[in-house]
């Protein structure tokens, strides 16, 4: 069947560099001497620690309980002893730290008792709870909880499985689809059933013909109940961006800040489908993932890596060449250089690239923008990147937002093509974090004002109360002395003051609540994970600066409207 595919605007063709690691079959990475399992697997939510130092845990044993709407459980990736619980640096551009459970493996790698989940004997709610408790999150990078994305199970027509893997160098999904196609397809079928989809579209960039072949074969073997199509999409970065892939496969454009669910389509990464398969059919929680090790290396490859494995433990596997000067986490378009190699692999970590000055030379000197519009022609979000650049540079953030700064997905296409070698994305990251900082600041100021106003109300109230009491007393005394009309009136006033007082307090509280709710800025919902991490970081800084004044849930983190966008790799 020839399917009509759609185009998205822009996109670029960076050197794919897939062949370096694509031929290497997935191998298990050796067990490290210590695992550092972050309780915070994404910036959205942290799990509550339920183990103690010194406790022995089994592989797959829950060590963190899902907390909050966006929480998912965290498990021990192997059997061993909990040797410490405390903050540890995370893989994040800013060197964020997060609470983590340190486990010393006992070498037995002994599983807990695993029980497959029988969907037929259970309902949707328990299925979703099961996935949450199996720690299933998006494995394309954003680590968004899958049970949230599976949503209400109504109104989803199309399930998209994202196997595009458009970032150069990365081949973990490619290998997964080639080697475990049946598992991925089974996971996709489970997801489709839970979400109530009527068809499944599996999008794979056409530079991975083996993966396409393997997945087609798997579909044929699975003979699924509903139509499943494996579709080779043109290789064009960022075709694996969730919204871009949905556009290519279905023609639907999901605007910024909106969820696929509203448009009858939802998207999961192939890795996620695989994890769902393991969780449902075998009862295995998510404790490992495939990581590509490649770049300036002698033995690039793909490894099944336990979550919590320190990255430095993996590096010898690929044999980085002597001139390697950095390691990138993620692809070269959207990844970042690691500043600390002790950070652990998390569920969203897909690739480590050994970088050398020859492989990734520093950009030539930045020249002024010549308004050539190359960036606009390359931008998949259909923005005018050079306008955003001018506004960000001149700190005209209001204008930048007017020109849809927050629609920018930071894909890097604009920087990639700019003949003036302007690091455009850096300017947007800067502008975004400045805007968040300001919004946090004004939110904090609002709060302070609220508190101040409330104190005023309270003082006012106390004054009135005092006055009322005094008046009442006086009235009483007076009444005792002589009964006149005027005194009666006074008493009434004094009594009446009770109600307006309450109303005032109620109003103040309501206003405070309202303002709290309004803190969430209109266009900072649906944030990319880095952005949220950045917010979290800024938030932390600010908390410190404010002297630890009352912590407050972050509007953007608690909103239901979170995109759950699986960033592609």
């Amino acid at each position, binding site marked *: 069947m020839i399917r009509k595919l759609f185009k998205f605007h822009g996109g670029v063709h960076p050197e794919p560099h897939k062949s370096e690691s694509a031929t290497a079959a997935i191998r298990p990475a050796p067990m490290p001497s210590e695992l550092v399992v972050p309780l915070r697997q994404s910036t959205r939510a942290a799990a509550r620690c339920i183990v103690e130092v010194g406790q022995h845990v089994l592989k797959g044993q829950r060590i963190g309980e899902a907390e909050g709407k966006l929480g998912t459980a965290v498990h021990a990736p192997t059997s061993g002893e909990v040797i410490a619980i405390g903050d540890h640096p995370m893989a994040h551009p800013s060197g964020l730290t997060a609470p983590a459970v340190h486990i010393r493996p006992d070498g037995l790698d002994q599983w807990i008792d695993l029980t497959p989940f029988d969907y037929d004997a259970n309902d949707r709610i328990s299925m979703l709870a099961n996935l949450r408790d199996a720690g299933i999150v998006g494995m394309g990078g954003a680590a968004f909880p899958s049970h949230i994305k599976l949503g209400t199970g109504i109104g989803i027509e199309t399930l998209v499985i994202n196997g595009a893997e458009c970032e*150069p160098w990365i081949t973990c999904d490619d290998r997964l689809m080639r080697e475990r196609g049946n598992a991925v397809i089974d996971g996709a079928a489970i997801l489709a059933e839970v979400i109530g989809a009527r068809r499944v579209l599996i999008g794979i960039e056409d530079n991975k013909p083996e993966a396409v072949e393997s997945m087609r074969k798997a579909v044929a073997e699975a003979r699924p109940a509903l139509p499943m199509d494996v579709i080779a999409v043109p290789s064009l970065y960022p075709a694996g961006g969730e919204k871009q892939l949905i556009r290519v496969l279905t023609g639907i454009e999901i605007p910024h800040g909106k969820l696929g669910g509203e448009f009858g389509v939802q998207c999961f990464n192939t890795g996620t489908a695989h994890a769902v398969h393991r969780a449902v059919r075998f009862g295995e929680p998510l404790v490992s993932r495939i990581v590509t090790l490649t770049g300036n290396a002698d033995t690039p490859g793909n490894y099944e890596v336990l979550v919590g494995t320190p990255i430095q433990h993996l590096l010898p596997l690929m044999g980085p060449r002597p001139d390697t000067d950095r390691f*990138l986490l993620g692809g070269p378009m959207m990844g970042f250089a690691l500043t600390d190699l002790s950070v652990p692999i998390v569920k969203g970590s897909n690739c480590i690239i050994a970088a050398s000055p020859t492989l990734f030379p520093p950009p030539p000197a930045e020249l002024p923008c010549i308004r050539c519009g190359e960036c606009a*022609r390359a931008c998949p979000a259909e923005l005018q990147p050079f306008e955003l650049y001018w506004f960000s540079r001149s700190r005209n953030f209001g204008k930048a937002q007017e020109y849809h700064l927050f629609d920018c997905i930071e894909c890097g296409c604009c920087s990639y093509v700019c003949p003036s070698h302007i690091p455009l994305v850096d300017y947007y990251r800067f502008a975004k974090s400045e805007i968040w900082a300001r919004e946090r600041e004004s939110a904090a100021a609002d709060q302070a004002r609220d508190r101040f106003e409330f104190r005023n109300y309270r003082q006012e109230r106390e004054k009135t109360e005092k006055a009322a009491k005094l008046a009442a007393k006086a009235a009483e005394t007076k009444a005792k002395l002589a009964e006149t009309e005027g005194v009666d009136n006074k008493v009434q006033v004094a009594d009446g003051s009770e109600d307006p007082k309450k109303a005032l307090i109620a109003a103040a509280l309501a206003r405070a609540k309202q303002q709290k709710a309004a803190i969430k800025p209109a266009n900072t919902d649906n944030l990319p994970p880095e952005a949220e991490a950045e917010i979290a970081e800024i938030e932390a800084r600010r908390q410190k600066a404010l002297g630890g004044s009352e912590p407050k849930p972050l509007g953007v983190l608690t909103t239901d409207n979170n995109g759950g966008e699986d960033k592609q790799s």
Partner: protein
Amino acid sequence: MIHSPYVRKPASVRAVMGQVLLALLPGVAIYAWIVGAGILVNLAIATVVALAAEAFVLRLRKRPLAPALGDLSAVVTAWLVVLCFPLIVPWWVTTIGVLVAIVAVKHLYGGLGQNPFNPAMVAYCCIIIAYPSLMAQWPPAGELDFQTQLNLIMGGAREIDAVTGATALDAMRTGLRVGEANVAVILEQNAFGAIGGRGYEWIPLGYIIGGLFLLARGIITWHMPVAFISALAAISGALWLVNPDQFASPLFHLATGGAMLAAFFIITDPVSGATTPLGKIIFAAGIGILAYLIRSFGAFPEGIAFAVLLMNMCVPLIDLKTQPAVFGQKRSRVP
């Protein structure tokens, strides 16, 4: 620290400008072959002046020389100035023109990428106002030997009648102004070839070839050339259909003056032009219409330069009003 993306397309301003220069070569070659090889001398003078001026200003502004001199943008500007000027303007006119473009227009506004006006067109307007007679002396194609051209360029005495004629546009305009002749009669004059100026009419062919090259290389987009040519053809065609005796044909308008040079090389200057797809169309169509009006009813025979500057002034507004819808904001995209 360097952030993502860590890979970049091997693109540079230098490469872009280099290709623009390359694309100008067919036009230059035809010019040199048919009209006079003196143009090469002018190009050389302008190139040297442009680079020297650029270096001088950069030194004054305490900016590093190498990147700016290497980006070739000054050379492109210089070449465009020369190609708009008559073949035999004295060297100092070329020099002043280039200085105006580089120093006054480009650097006083802040250097590369900052100028709201098209440098070559400002230079043309200044010089035509300052030296109208020198700018009106267009030698008939191929009738001056190289030595004479060189003498004139080097500032030799000008026996005006002997060496110069009017451009086709000029002749047409003067003819029509005098009012005793109609288009057909005027076209009998010596200044005219088959469709435009005798000899000169071949140069646009070179510019078209170069322009197609730039389109193919993705350095310019179709919007501006198509909109400009269509607008010029439409308005001249309309009036021509109404009164072919008083108004020259669209073909004449497209083949004369700098129409093709403008369509592919001048109005497409990214710095001073509109940037959005619709904005480019409006901008270029505006130039086409204004250029025609100035040619036909204004005080100067060639109106493109003034038209470009007028439209340059509208660019901020055009860009503002034509911001394209971003991803997901076009209802039609949701099937």
